[in-house]
């Protein structure tokens, strides 16, 4: 606000200065950057845990760390990556930044609650961090009772509390998005003119709002059981540990869709822009997001097939699980069909999108394996499941997150990233990822159980392959870290619309002004109408 001398245009980054202008900001764009910094930190922390795990697994006898430490490593890897990176990743950064802009709003409906959400994530993160530094937690990210309530001697309480607090961050973000989409759309921005990213963010928010409270109360009960020694899941009193699993997975299965739905939204945007065509079957892609969010709540019992859940419930949950496959398949087919007769650019975001579709296809198809009762009995709790969900969460969600970051980087920072390095990193990540996780499918079917510190010799070759892949993957993730920071200073200055995209976020300057738009936009076209932008000069950085 106190811009001076130079004729530099005022935008959200230079409108005010100082620590306070960031820590007390109510601007969704600045809050998005706060989130970006926070979750990047957690990503590298979780990555460090993963690195140690992979190094440890190079040898079957487990020489590097003790069993106790190993158990803490995979627990903290899971907790960090899931609750403090993946859940907030796309919604809280890209969603926070672009959801209001894409519907033509000046901000989210509740900017102060938005800031509060960030603080909650930070407080939750600090609690979890405290637990890790104080000695760590060894229950697995799943906190199964009675191990977590009675037998574990680690920092369960602080970690659970941290996740509980971070959960409210997630709930409030979802709430904010839902209200914003309902109440803050620009004139003419009807539901079926909304970009598909908004549809998927909306569906995600539904899950956050409906699912997270159940996790919260479950953690409260675990907390009470540990602290006050009351017994709700305690088998010694006649309690049922499987009830805990029902409650836990009621949230934690849909939570997978909190991670993947926003990714799908990002991919819809990227695929459209870089083939310069509207997404094939817009309505099907839009509704499939909502369908995934809804059906995703009906399938949690497929995590309990061998838990002593009743056989009949197992069958019901297996049956329902296949209904998630259909909307997922619809999306993949529609994205692929969008490419048909398009004008396909090989810009970095598009490479990530290609990678996403491929890896998500493999992740999704192996999901069919684990949803099938007969196969799941054999592969559940083995590396097959590990490989499957990493294909979804890393191959899917993180690929899309990286793609989205590259795609919107010019808008967020006003600078272009170096295209050559970026393409290289996309390739390295893709190859490293496959080398890391594909061997784990084989390991899993061979019977290698998950969470094993020491393992039989015959699995070593595949573990070594996996670790080799992980080191490639690590390089792939470090590269963007470096060139993104580099680009802030040395990157080419980004034009308002470098990709020839149609979304409202590209109709304003890069970086956007504090109020997002000089004047409230009026929407007259459906989404992805590229004839409207062909008149604009398109410069590709």
């Amino acid at each position, binding site marked *: *606000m106190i811009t001076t001398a130079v004729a530099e245009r005022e935008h959200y980054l230079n409108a005010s200065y100082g620590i306070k202008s960031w820590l007390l900001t109510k601007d969704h764009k600045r809050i998005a950057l706060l989130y970006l910094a926070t979750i990047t930190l957690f990503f590298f922390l979780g990555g460090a845990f993963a690195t140690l795990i992979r190094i440890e697994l190079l040898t079957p006898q487990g020489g590097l760390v003790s069993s106790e430490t190993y158990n803490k490593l995979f627990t903290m890897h899971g907790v960090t990556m899931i609750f403090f990176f993946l859940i907030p990743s796309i919604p809280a950064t890209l969603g926070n930044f672009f959801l209001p802009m894409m519907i033509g709003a000046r901000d989210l409906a509740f900017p102060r609650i938005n800031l509060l959400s960030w603080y909650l994530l930070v407080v939750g993160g600090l609690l979890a961090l405290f637990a890790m530094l104080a000695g760590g937690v060894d229950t697995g990210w799943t906190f199964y009772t009675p191990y977590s309530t009675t037998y574990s001697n680690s920092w369960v309480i602080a970690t659970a509390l941290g996740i509980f607090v971070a959960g409210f961050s997630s709930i409030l973000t979802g709430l904010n998005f*839902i209200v914003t989409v309902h*109440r803050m759309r620009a004139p003419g921005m009807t539901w079926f003119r909304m970009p598909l990213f908004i549809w998927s963010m909306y569906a995600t928010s539904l899950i956050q709002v409906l699912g*997270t409270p159940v996790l919260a109360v479950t953690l409260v009960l675990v907390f*009470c*059981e540990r602290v006050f020694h*009351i017994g709700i899941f305690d088998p010694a*009193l006649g309690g049922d540990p499987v009830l805990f699993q029902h409650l836990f997975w009621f949230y934690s299965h849909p939570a997978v869709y909190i991670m993947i739905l926003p990714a799908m939204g990002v991919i819809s945007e990227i695929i459209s822009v870089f083939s310069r065509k509207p997404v094939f079957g817009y309505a099907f892609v839009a509704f499939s997001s909502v369908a995934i969010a809804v059906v995703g709540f009906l399938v949690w019992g497929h995590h309990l097939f061998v838990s002593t859940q009743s056989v009949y419930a197992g069958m019901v949950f297996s049956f329902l699980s296949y209904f998630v496959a259909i909307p997922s398949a619809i999306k993949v087919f529609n994205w692929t069909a969008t490419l048909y007769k398009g004008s396909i650019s090989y810009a970095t975001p598009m490479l990530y999108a290609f990678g996403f579709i491929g890896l998500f296809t493999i992740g999704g198809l192996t999901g069919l394996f684990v949803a099938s009762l007969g196969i799941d009995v054999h592969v559940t709790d083995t590396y097959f499941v590990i490989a499957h969900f990493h294909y979804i969460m890393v191959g899917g969600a993180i690929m899309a997150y990286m793609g989205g970051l590259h795609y919107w980087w010019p808008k967020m920072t006003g600078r272009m990233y170096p295209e050559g390095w970026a393409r290289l990193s996309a390739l390295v990540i893709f190859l490293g990822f496959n080398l890391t996780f594909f061997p784990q499918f084989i390991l899993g079917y061979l019977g290698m159980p998950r969470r094993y510190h020491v393992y039989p010799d015959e699995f070593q070759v595949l573990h070594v392959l996996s670790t080799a892949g992980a080191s490639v993957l690590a390089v792939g993730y470090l590269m963007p870290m470096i060139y993104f920071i580099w680009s802030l200073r040395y990157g080419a200055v980004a034009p308002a619309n470098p990709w020839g995209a149609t979304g409202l976020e590209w109709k304003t300057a890069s970086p956007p002004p*504090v109020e997002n738009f000089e004047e409230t936009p009026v929407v007259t076209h459906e989404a992805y109408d590229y004839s409207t932008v062909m008149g604009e000069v398109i410069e590709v950085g």
Partner: protein
Amino acid sequence: MKLASQAHVHAETLARREQFDTAEQQRDASTLGMWVFLITEIMFFGGMFLAYSVYRTFYPQVFAVASSSMNAVIGATNTGVLLCSSFTMVMAVRAAQLGQRKAIITFLILTLLLGLAFLGLKGYEWTLKFEEHHVPGPSFHLDGVDMQGPAQIFFSLYFAMTGLHALHMVVGVGILTWLLIATYKGKFTAEYMTPVDIAGLYWHFVDIIWIFLFPLLYLIDRHLK
């Protein structure tokens, strides 16, 4: 430019925030936001209702005996107190709709007092539980059942459910106090009373939770006793 727009906003209405175009949009957004928040609360308590239902199905007799050991008079009285507070709360909202500042204050104070009365009775009831050894733990004992384990589960659920409900009441009391101060300062008018309105929604919701807790915890098969 930002200054200018802010000035413009302030000129139109004191209470409207800059991300909204109209006061009406703001009110709709706030109300919707509160309702969405309330469904998260449904799911939050829903987890405990599930645990309750499961164990009541497993151990019906134990639950009946344990429930009958509760003081139904306190429970019923507290239900009445909470319903009265809902009535005074809705009267406060009504007064706000009509812009009657003094009436808002009166009804808010009444609601606050009733809320505190509820919490007081609740606290008293809990101290009784300690005296009766009905608090889960090593010294737990419930007469009339052999299965002390499931009986402890009942009281674990009792403390968890009423505890979290009471916590919501405490938050509600905090909100009411804030409202009271804001009303006293004259922040609300007939045109702008959204905070009173949505605080009312919250208060009534907490009431509804209790409406279910009361029969489920206090009134299982009392005729057996």
